[in-house]
């Protein structure tokens, strides 16, 4: 990681009795694209608002380039925020919206307009400069909000679910725009989102939060492949969680007894004693389906239902003895070749390398 630009140091935020953010620490590097994800109400917006100075932390400190921001009112900070609702000024033209921040910094009108216009052109909004913002479409407004935040050339840009109001297509295009802007300008983005797709496809690192706490920080791949705990695994939703007691510890793998028989799980840095209960997870896209077991771990299961998403199919299998359905993700072509029908009995199998304990790195 590059040098830490923003440091969040044991920050908590309480609203009355309710603690929205609990003793959270992490730092954000120069030029990094950091996404914050988590279920609704977990404190993402609160985190961002504390960065912007719109809320004061109840405890802890936020540092920007090493300087504590404590007590600094929002209008003294250089951390522009892009709101989900955009918060464009409805009584101003597009140009004046973009120029607002410059005006507040005392930039003269001519210079202000020049710089605003340059940004509008960059975001392909040049022709709308004199329009009222209310006359723009959703995607256009979105870009105006971006231009307004970027025109002062900040080091860090905060974004709170900026794309959630857009329809799927627009959202995809805006993602591309955001990503390329961020690369091009070398700005640090702190990006709050609900959408796994957005976070995973854009961010360098993703923070997963739950109930005011950070559950995991890491690259999208790391989180996807190696969820740190049950919460993250369920949140990402691409694994099946199983449970067993340690029967035999090998070098590479550990053998467990589960409700459906013995299973091998990658050792990682797991240190459970013989007989200890342990949760582990199996990656859905590393499971093979067929009439015969093809890997060392295998269960016989009943094919319940499937979901077709893009060119992938998710299969739900009922395994005797375990509560959750076993999730299997196959490319559509593989699924077609299998020719199974709901209700059929199949064998699911996976190598020890597809199963991991929580918290172990691969």
């Amino acid at each position, binding site marked *: 990681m590059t040098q830490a630009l923003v440091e969040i140091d044991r920050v908590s935020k309480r609203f009355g009795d309710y603690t929205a953010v609990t003793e959270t620490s992490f730092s954000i590097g120069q030029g990094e694209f950091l996404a914050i994800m988590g*279920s609704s*109400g*977990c404190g993402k917006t609160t985190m961002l608002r504390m960065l912007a100075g719109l809320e004061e932390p109840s405890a802890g400190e936020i540092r920007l380039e090493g300087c504590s921001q404590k007590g600094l009112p929002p209008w003294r900070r250089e951390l522009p925020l892009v709101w989900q609702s955009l918060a464009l000024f409805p009584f101003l033209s597009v140009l004046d919206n973009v120029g607002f921040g410059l005006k507040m910094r005392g930039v003269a009108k001519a210079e202000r307009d020049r710089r605003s216009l340059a940004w509008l052109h960059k975001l392909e909004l040049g022709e709308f400069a004199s329009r009222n913002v209310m006359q723009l479409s959703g995607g256009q407004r979105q870009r105006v909000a971006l231009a307004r935040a970027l025109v002062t050339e900040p080091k860090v840009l905060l974004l709170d679910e900026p794309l959630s109001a857009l329809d799927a297509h627009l959202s995809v295009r805006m993602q591309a725009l955001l990503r390329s802007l961020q690369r091009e300008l070398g700005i640090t983005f702190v990006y709050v989102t609900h959408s796994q797709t957005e976070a995973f496809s854009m961010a360098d690192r993703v923070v997963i939060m739950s*109930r005011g706490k950070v559950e995991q920080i890491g690259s999208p791949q790391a989180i996807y492949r190696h969820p740190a705990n049950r919460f993250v695994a369920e949140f990402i939703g691409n694994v099946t969680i199983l449970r067993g007691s340690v029967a035999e510890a090998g070098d590479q793998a550990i053998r467990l007894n589960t409700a459906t028989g013995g299973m091998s799980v990658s050792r990682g840095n797991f240190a459970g004693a013989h007989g200890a209960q342990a949760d582990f997870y199996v990656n859905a896209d590393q499971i093979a389906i067929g009439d015969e077991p093809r890997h060392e771990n295998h269960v016989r299961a009943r094919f319940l239902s499937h979901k077709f998403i893009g060119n992938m199919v998710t299969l739900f299998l009922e395994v005797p003895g375990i509560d959750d359905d076993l999730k299997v993700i196959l490319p559509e072509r593989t699924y077609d070749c299998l020719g199974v029908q709901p209700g059929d009995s199949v064998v699911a199998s996976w190598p020890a390398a597809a199963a991991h304990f929580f918290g172990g790195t691969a």
Partner: protein
Amino acid sequence: MLKIGRWFGWAYTGYTFLFILAPIAASLVFSFNADRFPSLPLKGFTTDWYGGTFTDPLVIEAFQRSVMVSIPVALLSTILGFCAAYCDFRFEFRGKSLFGLLMLLPPTIPAVIMGLGMLSYLSRINLAGEVWAVLISHVVIALPFAMAMIRLRLAQMDAALEEASWNLRASPAQTLWHVVLPFCKQSLVAAFLITAAVSFDEFAVAWFVSGLNETVPVRVLVFLQGQVSPVINAIGTAVFTSSILLVAIGMGFSGMGKAKRAAADSPAQPAGGAVTNNGLSL
């Protein structure tokens, strides 16, 4: 910096309320003052003026009449106001903006002019000087208040609510009865109370058209023009007390109650994240 501004704001607000409430408070004080004229220093405590007020047959009659007028006024204006508000909310028709104007204009017509117009018109149709005249004029004045309040409530109604009701096989009439009216219930009660208060306080038009059938505020006006007696303060204080009750109840129905209920409910509602987790357990 910000704190100072905040305190300044609150102090200022306090002064504003002082300005608004001072005359009311003064009238309360003077209604117990022995001196016939409201001036300083106070002359001593007396309840004579209340005694005088509540034994004066004209005042008692005026009170009865005010009540008798304000209840039907409130009923009629609420019903008509609902009809108007609903039409404005639901239907598109030619001249709709004129309709709205016609419904909402009366409060902008100065009371003197309304009085003048009402008196000359109602005397043509043999109604001037009758209780009916007061009732009619007051409905004209109060209807816009009722309409505005109910219209505000209707604006909060998801347009899909009525459609959902039709979709569940309720005819438009059934929908009005089973969906729209229950939805507006609070605002209907509030409109009723507030139109009653409007009627109970209106003096200018009533003075023109009431003839011998004076209402309480007309009586006050007559006292003010003629006798200048502390009875004015006594009546004022009594009316203030009853208005404040009506309005408080009205407000309670329209908003405060809701706020309170919401506050009471919120613990029952799982906070943000919890909704996701225990919302569905299929």
